[in-house]
């Protein structure tokens, strides 16, 4: 059995930043386990630019952003294992993993950081009717094939879902020689960044049809066409609005789901809203010494925020390793943060006034488009933040900053509420 202070499951942006941060915070015995053949995770296939404006103050592509962190990891001499699949984690922090070289092996950790990322919602989960031919890809799978293998998965393309990966792939497929006919989006608004709609669709004359969905897929062996229809307010297709597209490929960009199967079997409590673990201000799950960060915790819009969050997770895990269970060190209660009035969830879910940062960032997402509204924070019944916003959209992560001084001194604080007003 191997022994490490901190085992990090996943060597993508979250795992890398968490590892570097844990090292900076005084822990030397760290092991990163990555299932793919290289570090960097999904960044390796995100070859477009736009990463790193917050972290490095310059626009990098995905692989370049990953390389910066990999360099830091190598410089800090942090150990990692590639092509290594974690198959089990127990509550006493025994990690079972496997790869070709080491076979099936166990690692005893003092703390664990979950950084497994997310997966794409599949055609099956979307329940799109029709045949099941070749040529139906999730946008991320197509992205890997095009950007890493140099293979073109199709020539005549329809895209369902206007998430950022779908938009980015519309441009990538176009540049590599495919014809993208249309992007259909079930919702009345796009989940992608405005910049991507302009630079990936408008630049190439690709129409975006909001409130539309795929109602049929044709083709017994390879996709030969799809039918798109307009949907009503309940997202049900409206009869008579069908439009047929002859195409050989359907790409799906319909949402990401945190990959928490390992977390669940370990006993980590999962939020039904984010599908990620419920964590406290230290990004610690209900299982003591098990932390989570990045897209396994909640799906982020920008990798820079993943890195920030992972940095915090690394720091807290290091503190846990050095100082033991934090609940023993501080008195007082965890204060729940309640998401209300359009706010779907917050990360963290609870906050401890003693343990929190001086200025503690709480991230959240909204469930709809809100214009000319306020983001408000209440301590018990008292409003302490009331910030005017022109627009808030579900596709972008939002944040509020709570002040430790304010929370510590607030009399009988029992609840924090974040809402849109």
């Amino acid at each position, binding site marked *: 059995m191997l022994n490490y202070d901190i085992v990090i499951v996943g060597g993508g942006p979250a795992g890398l930043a968490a590892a570097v941060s844990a090292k900076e915070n005084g822990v030397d015995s760290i092991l990163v386990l990555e299932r793919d053949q290289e570090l960097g995770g999904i960044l390796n296939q995100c070859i477009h630019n736009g990463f790193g404006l917050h972290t490095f103050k310059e626009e990098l592509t995905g692989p370049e952003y990953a390389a910066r962190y990999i360099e830091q990891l190598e410089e800090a001499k942090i150990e990692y294992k590639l092509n290594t699949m974690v198959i089990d984690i127990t509550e006493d922090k025994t990690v079972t993993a496997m790869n070709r070289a080491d076979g099936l092996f166990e690692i005893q950790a003092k703390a664990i950081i979950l950084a497994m990322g997310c997966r794409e919602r*599949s055609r*099956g989960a979307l329940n799109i009717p029709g045949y099941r031919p070749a040529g139906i890809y999730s946008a991320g799978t197509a992205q890997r094939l095009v950007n890493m*293998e140099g293979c073109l998965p199709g020539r005549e393309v329809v895209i369902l879902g206007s998430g950022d990966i779908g938009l980015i792939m519309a441009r990538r497929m176009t540049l590599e020689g495919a014809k993208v006919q249309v992007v259909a989006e079930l919702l009345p608004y796009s989940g992608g960044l405005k910049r991507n709609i302009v630079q990936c669709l408008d630049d190439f004359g690709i129409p975006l049809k909001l409130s539309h969905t795929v109602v049929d897929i044709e083709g017994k062996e390879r996709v030969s066409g799809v039918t798109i229809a307009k949907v009503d307010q309940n997202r049900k297709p409206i009869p008579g609005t069908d439009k047929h597209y002859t195409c050989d490929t359907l790409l799906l960009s319909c949402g990401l789901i945190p990959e928490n199967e390992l977390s669940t079997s370990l006993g980590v409590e999962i939020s039904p809203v984010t599908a990620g673990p419920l964590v406290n201000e230290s990004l610690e799950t209900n299982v003591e010494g098990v932390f989570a960060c990045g897209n396994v915790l909640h799906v982020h819009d920008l990798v820079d925020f993943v890195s920030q969050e992972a940095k915090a997770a690394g720091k807290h895990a290091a503190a846990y390793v050095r100082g033991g269970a934090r609940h023993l060190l501080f008195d007082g209660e965890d204060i729940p943060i309640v998401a209300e009035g359009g706010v779907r969830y917050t990360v963290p879910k609870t906050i401890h006034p003693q343990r929190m940062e001086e200025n503690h960032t709480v991230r959240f997402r909204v469930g709809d488009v809100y214009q000319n509204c306020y983001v408000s924070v209440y301590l018990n019944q008292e409003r302490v933040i009331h910030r005017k916003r022109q627009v808030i959209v579900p596709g972008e992560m939002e944040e509020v900053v709570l002040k430790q001084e304010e929370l510590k001194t607030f009399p009988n604080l029992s609840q924090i509420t974040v809402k849109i007003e």
Partner: protein
Amino acid sequence: MYDVVIIGAGVSGCACARELSRYQLNICVLEKEEDVCCGTSKANSAIVHAGFDAKSGSLMAKLNVEGNQMMEELSRELDFPFQRNGSLVVCLHKEELPNLEELYERGIQNGVKDLRIIGREELIEMEPNISQQAVAALYAPTGGIVCPFGMNLAFAENAAVNGVEFYFYTEVVGFEKQESTWLVKTSQGDFATKYIINAAGVYADQFHNMVSSKKLHITPRRGEYCLLDHAVAEYVKHTIFQLPGKYGKGVLVTPTVHGNILVGPTADDIENREGTNTTQEGLEELTARARQTVKDLPMRQVITSFAGLRAHEDGHEFQIGEAEDAKGFIDCAGIESPGLTAAPAIGKMVAQMIKELSNAKEKTDFIAARKGILDPKTLDQEAHAALIRKQPDYGTIVCRCELVSEGEILDAIRRPLGAKSLDGVKRRTRAGMGRCQAGFCSPRTMELLARECNLPLSEITKSGGSSKLIMGRNKDS
């Protein structure tokens, strides 16, 4: 010259092939698709029926019960997943209790063992997620679940090992009767044979009607299904049927041998014999009906939906036997539910017929046992570790959702009648059958297929034919 040509490499055809391979016969199987198990056999309820449903005295009832009884031993001999989890037919309306009694009586007549009717309390204890409405149920402990691909592949591989030849992409287009033999005309040339076994699923009536004046009629009856994630594996433990009655036939909710929950099927008679598309209405109907028997069924956990076609014969009876006016042409037609259960018995019955007609002698070197693809998850930790030390390919996970290793995928490709496509790999190993539905593993599996089959990536298909996965290289236009 063959002694026997079998049309169709589905579960019936392969069961016949395997049983016949015991004899000193020259046998081949003709299949129009790229692989075995590509039609009805791949898309069904994966149930081993107890046998209370079929009409008493029918061939269906007889072969159902026989097949059910053979399943344990066969699954051990041929190494495919089978589990006797028990079936429950749930009665939701007091006034339908007599129907439940009737079903019980029929089961007894059909020779189904250990049947009993249980009350609401016992039912809820057995299945806590059963509908509040449930009043009673027929409990059949002999009901089971099986991997339909596993069983079909096991028959086929074992037949191949015992000398049966398989021809894929070989579509039968006609027959020519010569004196005492037949000429089977196909897309790949003619096959001369003494006997023909017509196990062509939804096409069996077309072939029968080419040689016989006593016509058969088969309707493709489409059934749509939804498959739920492992996350809800324990939602039900038994196969839950709804008692058919004036409120409709209901759909079943059952665990699968691989720890998913399967919901289905609908029943729509269609004309298209390739019409395996799902429909909006069908998928909605499934949810509504399944929730009648199982409360709050977590349909958010659906990972895929699919449709299969039952070969529904007008008289709803298996048509097995030599055509009266076409000597040597043996039908194995109208094999719809409980066809999967009955397959082992069908194979035996047809083999017996051919044996009697041809006076074939048994081989002395018949190999009865077949070993399936090793699933390292079934090993204990020590044996698993030893396996990876010996064969490191088992240490690389390709499909992360179902934890399928490179070693298993290579075995699937290299073994007799090995996989040639993504779906072929999927049916043999479950790679791509999990919650991400091949999103992560398909590029890796494609690479392995390309390497092993010595083909460029652009030639790898999802399911053979023109189901190519890659249409070109970047900037090649």
